[in-house]
């Protein structure tokens, strides 16, 4: 028998309700059980459903639960869709999610109150629910439900330490910036409904594929709207600013939401809509450019960050840029491939950093770390592996996906973007090894009692690390480039049904020679960055960096201050907004509208106050008034005759 799809989101939802309603009273063990357990069950259920699906002819499956909204011509159902794409997402979302729940048990165990602990797991479960809805939804609206749901959870979890103002700010910032993206998404949906009269994936894509000529003219706008949504969710320039701040949340959250799953929703969405995007080449170019710019921009910023999580955050942004670059050039498979591998090693990195921070008693500044290799070996080794994967060193997972992307870009003849990609690869390797060196190599630079407390993390935290590290190694082998083996790209083959046939010039693909060249190039660049970082920061601990800083202080400061983008936004958007709002209130409302009305009322009152003095109390005046009235009437009436 096959488990119904709704079970997948339903289980975390149940966990959410349990933690929310009973968590505070029943204590941490219960919460752990309910929280992690529900996700574990979901994972099991997912794989129970997925394995047969993947083994089989993985033809799309749609399960309609009920009608949802019907109004006039508009109607959308609550229905879930299982196809290779969603199956892929579900598989690693549930799995990674489960690992991180597991990890959280250890990481959050010393969170003082039961209430906080319950709250944490409740949010986490709610996130799993929303993410699964996002992935499994069979129409744009349901996807949007998950889309906003994960946004909500990210908001709640980033602001988890609500009594710290920066956390609260970060949460709000995350939600608002996401909302800006969602604005685009909404418009996109309206436009799609306007064009196709439906929000159902199959209907929309079917119609689009069937009659491209009819819709193509509008689709550029539609796709750009949708992409704005993706930019918000996946932290692309210029909407990336919320992600670094989002590190204010607990580290596992960063790992799960802001590295592995949620932020890749944008990529998922674009891939999901690849049919539409293909019909809008300009939009695709935009996607590619934004992706490339984001990739290198974030990578550069990452070079000079000292907060361990900030480095990882910017690296995430940069990697997301990579993924969009892939989508932009039509290499969706590569993009999704990178999504998956990135989920593994970036989660691993975050969890590792979490383990480090845990050990350092909350310290996140790498300059106060160093030499942790001996103190926490497991963390170190897993972290190293993940780093290598991220840097794109063969045969680790990252190598294959990144290589695929670069190949795709080159294949699409976007040579500038290709160059950008290659450079970024080098930067990536550099800042990652800078991080590793500063953290694990050399001697300890923190305080004595920090040093005294240093310890390897408990098993609930290390096990996930190991597993993820393992995946970071082997995860990439499902998608070998053709130069290794013609049938090696099982990943591509698996996802193929999602994409209609490729345009003609792409069929040829690259010659083996070129492909070898690209591989060699990217690997070399990566290795170069790696070695440079190792030389500067480990071998002869950081003299050259100082030299550089001294050489060009301006640029260095600029990079260190993240190009002062936040300040820019504050000056250009936030302040004017406050000013405008306040001005409208004080001027239009108080001054103009109420002013006019009160003035009118006042004038009437005034008239009364003056006219009452006509009543002088003197009879003669009364008689005169009377007589004037008479004469007036006579003039008016008799005067006419």
């Amino acid at each position, binding site marked *: 028998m096959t488990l119904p799809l709704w079970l997948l989101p339903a289980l975390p939802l149940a966990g959410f309700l349990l933690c929310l309603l009973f968590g505070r009273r029943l204590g941490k063990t219960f919460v752990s059980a309910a929280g992690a357990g529900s996700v574990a069950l979901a994972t099991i259920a997912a794989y129970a459903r997925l394995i047969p699906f993947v083994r089989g002819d993985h033809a799309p499956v749609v399960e309609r639960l009920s009608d949802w909204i019907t109004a006039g011509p508009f109607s959308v159902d609550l229905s879930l869709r299982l196809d290779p794409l969603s199956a892929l997402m579900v598989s690693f979302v549930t799995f990674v999610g489960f690992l991180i729940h597991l990890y959280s048990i250890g990481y959050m165990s010393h969170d003082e109150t039961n209430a906080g602990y319950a709250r944490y797991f409740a949010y986490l479960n709610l996130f799993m629910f929303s993410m699964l809805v996002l992935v499994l939804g069979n129409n744009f609206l349901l996807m949007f439900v998950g889309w906003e749901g994960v946004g909500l959870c990210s908001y709640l979890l980033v602001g988890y330490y609500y009594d710290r103002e920066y956390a609260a700010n970060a949460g709000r910032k995350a939600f608002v910036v996401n909302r800006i993206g969602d604005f685009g998404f909404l418009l996109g949906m309206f436009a799609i409904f306007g064009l196709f009269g439906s929000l159902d994936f199959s209907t929309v894509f079917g119609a689009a594929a069937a009659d491209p000529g009819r819709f193509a003219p509008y689709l550029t706008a539609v796709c750009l709207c949708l992409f704005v949504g993706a930019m918000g969710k996946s932290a692309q320039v210029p909407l990336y600013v919320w992600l670094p701040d989002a590190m204010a949340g607990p580290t596992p959250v960063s790992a799960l939401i802001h590295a592995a799953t949620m932020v890749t929703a944008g990529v998922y969405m674009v891939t999901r809509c690849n049919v539409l995007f293909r019909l809008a080449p300009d939009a695709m170019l935009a996607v590619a450019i934004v992706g490339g710019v984001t990739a290198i921009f974030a990578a550069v910023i990452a070079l000079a960050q000292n907060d361990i999580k900030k480095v990882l955050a910017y690296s995430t942004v940069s990697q997301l840029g990579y993924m969009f670059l892939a989508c932009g050039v039509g290499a969706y498979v590569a993009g999704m491939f990178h999504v998956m591998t990135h989920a593994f090693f970036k989660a691993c990195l975050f969890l590792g950093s979490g383990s480090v921070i845990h050990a350092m008693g909350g310290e996140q500044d790498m300059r106060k770390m160093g030499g942790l290799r001996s103190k926490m070996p497991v963390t170190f080794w897993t972290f190293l592996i993940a780093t290598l994967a991220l840097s794109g060193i063969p045969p680790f997972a990252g190598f294959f996906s990144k290589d695929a992307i670069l190949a795709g870009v080159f294949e699409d003849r976007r040579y500038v973007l290709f160059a950008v990609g290659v450079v970024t690869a080098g930067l990536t390797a550099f800042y990652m090894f800078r991080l590793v060196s500063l953290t694990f190599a050399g001697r300890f630079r923190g305080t004595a009692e920090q040093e005294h407390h240093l310890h390897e993390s408990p098993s609930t935290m290390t096990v996930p690390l190991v597993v993820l590290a393992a995946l970071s190694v082997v995860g990439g082998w499902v998608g070998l480039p053709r130069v290794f083996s013609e049938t090696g790209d099982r990943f591509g083959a698996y996802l193929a049904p999602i994409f209609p046939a490729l345009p003609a010039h792409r069929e040829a693909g690259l010659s083996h020679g070129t492909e070898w060249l690209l591989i060699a190039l990217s690997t070399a660049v990566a290795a170069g960055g790696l070695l440079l970082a190792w030389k500067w920061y480990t071998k002869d601990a950081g003299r050259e960096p100082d030299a550089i800083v001294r050489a060009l202080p301006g640029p260095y400061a600029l990079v260190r201050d993240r190009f002062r983008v936040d300040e820019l936004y504050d000056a250009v958007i936030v302040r004017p907004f406050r000013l405008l709002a306040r001005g409208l209130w004080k001027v239009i409302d108080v001054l103009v509208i109420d002013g006019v009305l009160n003035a009118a009322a006042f004038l009437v009152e005034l008239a009364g106050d003056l006219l009452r003095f006509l009543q002088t*109390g003197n009879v003669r005046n009364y008689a005169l008034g009377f007589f004037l009235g008479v004469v007036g009437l006579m003039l008016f009436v008799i005067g006419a005759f």
Partner: protein
Amino acid sequence: MIGGIPLSDVLLASAALFTIGVAGALLRRSAITIFLSIEVMMNAANLALVGYGAALGTREGQIVVFFVIAIAAAEASVGLAIFVSLFRHTESIDVNDIHLLKW
């Protein structure tokens, strides 16, 4: 024509009297004088009534005048009584001095 008297003369006199009455009522300050002026106005009306009555050859005019005179008498008694009772409070019947009630 009433006998040899043209009606216009009567009306002219009546109008003059009425206007004078109004003038007195408007310009004098002593309540009594004002009231006298009002009496003049009524007499103006009476004159016109008699004139018209005669011109129309009906007695109704005179009858109305009869009523008016009686009413004038009644008014006089009441009015003067009011003056008296007011005079007890404000040792004056100058209407300029009487403005307790105003605004």
